[in-house]
């Protein structure tokens, strides 16, 4: 039999590479914009869709799912073909995968900017897009397993294992976290409520980091680092152990995002312990990467690609050490809700993902265009610029986070809080400025890369179908000499695919399970009542404008927080919160106890011009809430959905909901009149006020006897 000749599909790789670059730039621009808005609220141009709360999800989604996402696919489509010595399973699927993914990204950007969001961080996309994502993921899966199936190399290189893990786990996470009940085409409510929603969300959130930003990139590292350094990985056995250990531990680290929250103690400790355990495998991977370059540092000195990789891996090491530290309760008590978190994630994003992606781009583009990199010098410049960017970004953020946390916790001798919240913010504005500068510099580096790569591409010519040849995979004769094994082994990838699909199916079945969850939402605090229709609408506006991105709704049981915001939050308070709005960052103060704290008029003016109420505030104006009308048409549907989720509205309430809504609205607008504020009862601001005045107030009506 002749060796088989076949062609690697570089077209798809090229497409994904281009997409990576494009979305990278877009995502980072969005990031830069909001970074500026933090100290220059006017930078939102007074438009809803350019305001922080709308752009921030665009930034995170663009960077994670568009930039890194396409980066993953670029790396996988390139390396998988070569590791399997086979063309991708199906060109059609490759095309579908590529184009639909880009479509999803565009859809995501549009919907997020127009305020269609589920209000769950990193899972903001609405249900139609969620479904689209699931489908593309299946396409990707078929394409990947198909390729593995028809491979011409018997051994599955460790990188492939990382890819498989990524696929399976992300599928599960996405499905489980995306249970939501559609209200309209672009509106849905999370199936889970309050604490439960929080747990699922951060179980997802953490593993999104683990299996979308880490495992695939580790796989990519295990392929491209040895290639770039032209030397085998330091210890292949270590890489294998690294993989299996990571797989079995990662999945449970999620709850550490909820330390000190209303989440049960044991669940919190669980998150902590597993996070700590994670250090071992993570560092195993990092050291394996760095040791691969031992004795090749001279290479590193002149090769920008290796430079990028070294910094990337180092950042991975830092992030994976810092993560577990942050999940220690006492550390978390300080860092959580501050900019420390922002610094932490950007070490990962800018350093690990960003730099590794750049390295791979620099490596792949010349390869598939069979030419040389246009300018090594520019690449090296990019490297230094980028590194400076990262430093200028991270250092001030760590600093800001730490200082602010310290200020929050300071009391005077008289035992009253030393600083108003606003003071702690204005104090760190300079760091915000430096941060945006760092971001800008990093972005400049990216533009240098774009120029460099464009030049490179011009100088070369794409080998859309790169010829290669390899003998077909001969039957494996099992070591025990049993013949039937090898058939079985050859079928194995199919079986794995099947199992994975079964797994997805299990995920689907779980869709039924939530119904029984509802019973666990029976109010544990009698005084906690469902939201009125108006408040519900207000809450949806709160979500739409992305308020949760700057304001938490979770008072942790610390002296300072109780003193500053009021009684600490109880799990029972959130049973009607679909989705939960605990937030993860306090750019503004916590709102868990905002209800009844200020008069309606205060909120009205504050929304119109925040600085008028709290001078020096960095919150943008939400003037449009005063003009836009509440979408009352949606009220009945929303009420029905909530009933399905077990919120005890009386039967048929959806029909009279709007009546109640108007009644409450009129009351508020009348109340505003007293303060000489004339506004229609049907304006969004009214709903907003209604909601804010309600948040966290139920517990106050609690008869003293029940208070514990």
């Amino acid at each position, binding site marked *: 039999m002749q060796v088989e*000749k076949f*062609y690697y599909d570089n077209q798809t790789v090229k497409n994904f590479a281009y997409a990576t670059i494009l979305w990278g730039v877009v995502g980072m621009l969005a990031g830069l914009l909001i970074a500026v808005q933090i100290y220059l609220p006017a930078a939102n141009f007074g438009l809803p869709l350019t305001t922080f709360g709308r752009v921030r999800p665009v930034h995170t989604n663009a960077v994670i799912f568009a930039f890194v996402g396409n980066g993953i696919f670029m790396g996988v489509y390139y390396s998988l073909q*070569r*590791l399997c010595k086979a063309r991708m399973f199906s*060109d059609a699927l490759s095309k579908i995968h590529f184009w639909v993914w880009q479509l999803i990204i565009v859809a995501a950007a549009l919907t997020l900017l127009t305020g269609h969001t589920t209000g769950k961080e990193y899972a903001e996309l609405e249900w139609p897009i969620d479904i689209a994502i699931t489908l593309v993921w299946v396409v990707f899966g078929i394409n990947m397993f198909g390729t593995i199936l028809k491979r011409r*190399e018997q*051994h*599955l*290189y*460790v990188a492939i*294992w990382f890819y*498989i*893990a990524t696929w*399976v*786990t992300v599928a*599960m996470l996405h499905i*489980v976290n995306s249970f939501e009940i559609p209200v309209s085409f672009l509106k849905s409510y999370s199936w889970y409520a309050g*604490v*439960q929603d929080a*747990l*699922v969300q951060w179980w997802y959130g953490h593993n999104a980091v683990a299996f979308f930003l880490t495992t695939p990139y580790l796989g990519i590292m295990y392929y491209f680092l*040895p*290639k770039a350094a*032209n*030397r*085998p*990985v330091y210890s*292949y*056995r270590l890489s*294998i152990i690294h993989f*299996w250990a990571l*797989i*079995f531990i990662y*999945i*449970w680290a999620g709850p550490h995002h909820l330390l000190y929250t209303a989440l*049960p103690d044991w*669940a919190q400790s669980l998150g902590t312990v597993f996070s700590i355990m994670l250090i071992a495998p993570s560092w195993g991977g990092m050291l394996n990467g760095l040791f691969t370059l031992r004795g090749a540092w001279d290479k590193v000195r002149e090769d920008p690609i290796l430079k990028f990789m070294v910094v990337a891996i180092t950042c991975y090491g830092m992030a994976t050490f810092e993560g577990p530290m942050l999940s220690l309760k006492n550390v978390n008590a300080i860092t959580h809700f501050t900019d420390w978190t922002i610094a932490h994630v950007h070490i990962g994003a800018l350093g690990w993902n960003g730099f590794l992606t750049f390295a791979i781009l620099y490596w792949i583009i010349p390869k598939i265009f*069979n030419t040389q990199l246009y300018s090594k010098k520019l690449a090296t410049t990019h490297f230094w610029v980028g590194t400076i960017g990262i430093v200028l970004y991270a250092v001030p953020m760590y600093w800001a986070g730490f200082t602010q946390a310290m200020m929050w916790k300071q009391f005077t001798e008289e035992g009253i809080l030393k600083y108003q919240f606003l003071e702690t913010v204005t104090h760190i504005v300079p760091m915000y400025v430096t941060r945006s500068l760092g971001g800008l510099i990093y972005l400049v580096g990216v533009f240098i890369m774009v120029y460099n790569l464009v030049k490179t591409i011009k100088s070369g010519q794409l080998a*859309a*179908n*790169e*010829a*290669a*040849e*390899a003998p077909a995979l001969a039957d*494996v004769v099992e*070591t025990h000499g049993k013949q039937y094994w090898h058939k079985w*082994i050859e079928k*194995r990838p199919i079986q*794995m695919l099947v*199992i*994975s699909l079964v*797994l997805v199916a*299990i995920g689907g079945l*779980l869709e039924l*399970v*939530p119904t*029984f*969850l509802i019973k*666990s939402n029976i109010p544990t605090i009698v005084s906690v009542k469902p939201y009125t229709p108006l408040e519900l609408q207000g809450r949806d506006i709160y979500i739409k404008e992305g308020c949760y991105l700057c304001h938490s709704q979770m008072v942790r049981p610390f002296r300072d927080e109780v003193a500053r915001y009021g009684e600490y939050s109880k799990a029972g308070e959130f049973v009607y919160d679909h989705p939960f709005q605990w937030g993860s960052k306090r750019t503004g103060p916590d709102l868990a106890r905002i209800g009844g704290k200020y008069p309606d008029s205060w909120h009205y003016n504050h929304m119109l011009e925040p600085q008028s109420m709290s001078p020096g505030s960095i919150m943008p104006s939400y003037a449009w809430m005063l003009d836009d009308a509440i979408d009352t048409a949606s009220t009945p549907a929303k009420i029905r959905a909530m009933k399905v989720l077990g919120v005890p509205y009386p039967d048929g309430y959806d029909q009279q909901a709007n009546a109640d809504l108007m009644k409450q609205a009129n009351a508020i607008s009348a109340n505003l009149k007293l303060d000489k504020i004339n506004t229609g009862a049907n304006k969004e601001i009214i709903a907003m006020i209604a909601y804010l005045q309600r948040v966290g107030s139920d517990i106050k009506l609690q008869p003293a006897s029940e208070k514990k």
Partner: protein
Amino acid sequence: MSVIIILLIASISVAALFLAAFIWSVRNGQYKDEIAPAVRILFEDKPLEPPTKVEEAKLS
């Protein structure tokens, strides 16, 4: 916290899946030789002549 049950089912089934994969890979002798695979990926098969128009057409 009954949601934890979902998470458990999901996580454990995934873990179980990977356990199966692990056992398969050992039994398949994937890790018999821990030196060759790492070296093998470094070999660049030298560029062959690109596909002819005909093959090109066949591909796309």
